[in-house]
């Protein structure tokens, strides 16, 4: 589904990704762990199409297409979703209207019929109920005045509503208490399916107790230095990132 090969990315003249390679198949959940500054968020932003990232080398193919040549809204319509580490507050723009506009723009792009207000609200209520979110969220401006937990819930709610094929979660667990984190994990687990891929970027192993990944990758200094199954996350938890660095040094010697 997603094939990243030897990706090099510069931000403001500085190389952040230095030859990253990753394959995500449909139905798989990949966790990407790593210390601060490893380039994890850069990866998420590049995949979603944020401006300001210069791709100097490598390729990203999504369902056989060159993902990097698509605009962010085209990527969304093709099924790519990025849950932001810091969801943006947009005062004055109503959540319901924004999501209806987003959903119908995506449907239009895919040649599907647009939903009318009744159909849309029915869908919204279903998703809110499954995620145990109060519908008062929909009457507010996008993330404006939301607590950290509410913002993250809103991201998961949007993901559930838009039903992407590739969901990238950028440190969705950061700043969450245990209940909010469980809610996020439940939202993700409910969406796991044979057609959908997940890239879960996280700093801590804790989230992976609830979203059990098929693969764990460790990212250090712009590339993936170690890959394994879920047990790799536990080793990291035990030994810290220094352990990886030591292993790399030992391997090089």
């Amino acid at each position, binding site marked *: 589904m997603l094939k990243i090969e030897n990706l090099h990315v510069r931000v403001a003249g500085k190389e952040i990704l230095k030859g990253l390679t990753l394959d995500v198949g449909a139905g798989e959940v990949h966790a990407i762990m790593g210390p601060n500054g490893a380039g994890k968020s850069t990866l998420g932003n590049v995949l*979603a*199409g944020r401006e300001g990232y210069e791709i100097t080398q490598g390729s990203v193919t999504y369902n056989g297409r060159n993902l990097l040549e698509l605009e962010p809204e085209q990527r969304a319509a093709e099924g790519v979703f990025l849950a932001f580490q810091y969801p943006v507050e947009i005062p004055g*723009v109503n959540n319901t209207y924004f999501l209806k*506009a987003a959903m119908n723009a995506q449907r239009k792009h895919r040649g599907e019929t647009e939903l009318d207000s009744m159909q849309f609200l029915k869908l919204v209520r279903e998703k809110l109920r499954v995620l145990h979110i109060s519908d008062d969220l929909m009457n507010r401006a996008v993330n404006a005045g939301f607590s950290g937990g509410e913002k993250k819930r809103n991201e998961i709610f949007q993901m559930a509503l838009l039903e992407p094929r590739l969901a990238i979660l950028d440190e969705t667990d950061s700043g969450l208490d245990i209940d909010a984190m469980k809610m996020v994990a439940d939202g993700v687990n409910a969406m796991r399916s044979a057609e959908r891929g997940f890239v879960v970027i996280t700093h801590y192993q804790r989230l992976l107790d609830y979203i059990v990944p098929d693969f764990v990758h460790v990212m250090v200094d712009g590339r993936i230095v170690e890959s394994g199954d879920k047990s790799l996350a536990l080793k990291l938890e035990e030994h810290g990132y220094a352990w990886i660095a030591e292993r790399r040094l030992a391997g090089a010697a």
Partner: protein
Amino acid sequence: MNAALLDEFGVGDARERDESWRYSKTALRALSQQDFTRAEALSTLDAPLAARFDWPQTRGRRLVFINGSYSETHSDVGRIAAGVSVRHEDGQRLQLTLTGDSAEPVHLVYASVPGAAATRWQASADLDLRAGRANVIEQFVGAAGADMLGVLHSRITIAPGAELHLTTLSDLPDSVSQYRRVNTTVAHGGVCRFTDAIFGGRLQRADLNIGLDGEGARFESRGAFVLRGRQHADTHLDIRHAARDTICDVLWRGVADQRARGVFHGAITVAAGADGADARLSNKNLLLSAQAEIDTQPVLEIYADEVKAAHGATVGQLDETALFYLRSRGVPVDMARSLLIAGFCREAFAGVADGDVRVRLDALLAERLPHSQFDQEGVAG
């Protein structure tokens, strides 16, 4: 420069006048060089223009002035409340006296209709709120054509404990210029809530002077200008805290695209002895093109001892992170920009108590935005 208009619209000595017109001098000079003759007092309007103020909610409580003169044909005063008295001397001087609670708004309309050559009109309005609460809508509309200049001098008096909600909606074609001077005094315990929406126009200058003369008097100002092309708007707020425990709260937004020019001057003076005054001013602006210009000047002068004051002004561009956020969910870029701009302005209109007016403001905002691509419900919230 031909000093005629500067003399007419300027206040104070030569230096003060010059300073107050600093950012709009060129535009005023261009107007001064034109020969504006007196506009005709017309009795009827074209249907499309009349449709813009024929609101079902204000039928029976609507006063219409065409080129500054009262229009019997278009005014509709059949359902005006008992506490409202209306006089219009020689058709041009409006005297509106309001007493007692009248939740239903009084709708004042000033229409500019061009002649064959450049014309101007002038009118004045006295609004006297003697007691209770009142809701007044002031609307400026115009037809495109030969150049026009409209001049309105208003005097607003708010009695002790009375509360006025005034919403001004000015939406003008590029051939119409307008000068408005509003002198407001608020007595002790009185409240004035003023929302000002400014769209279009060749030069729209508003001098809003507010005297908080009585203890505990309160003034709230909300407003936004949305400009494109070569439109030019210049708003001067001059608020004087002259008594103890007076409050002012100012929140304005500005948007300029293409070669438009916006000016906001917000001056707050707390006089000696006006202790306990609370003054807040926030002015944020969005520049949408490299050729557009916005100048903002917050001025705070305090001569009292115990005062709370906060002011801030910014000029910036559309938030790229917010734009990316909307696009990453599938919203096309033009629509995402429109949503953000509308949301930005809407903060200034959120406080309009009259639901019908708020909906109309939202609709107008959607219509007048650069890159308008969405319907009016987009700015609800």
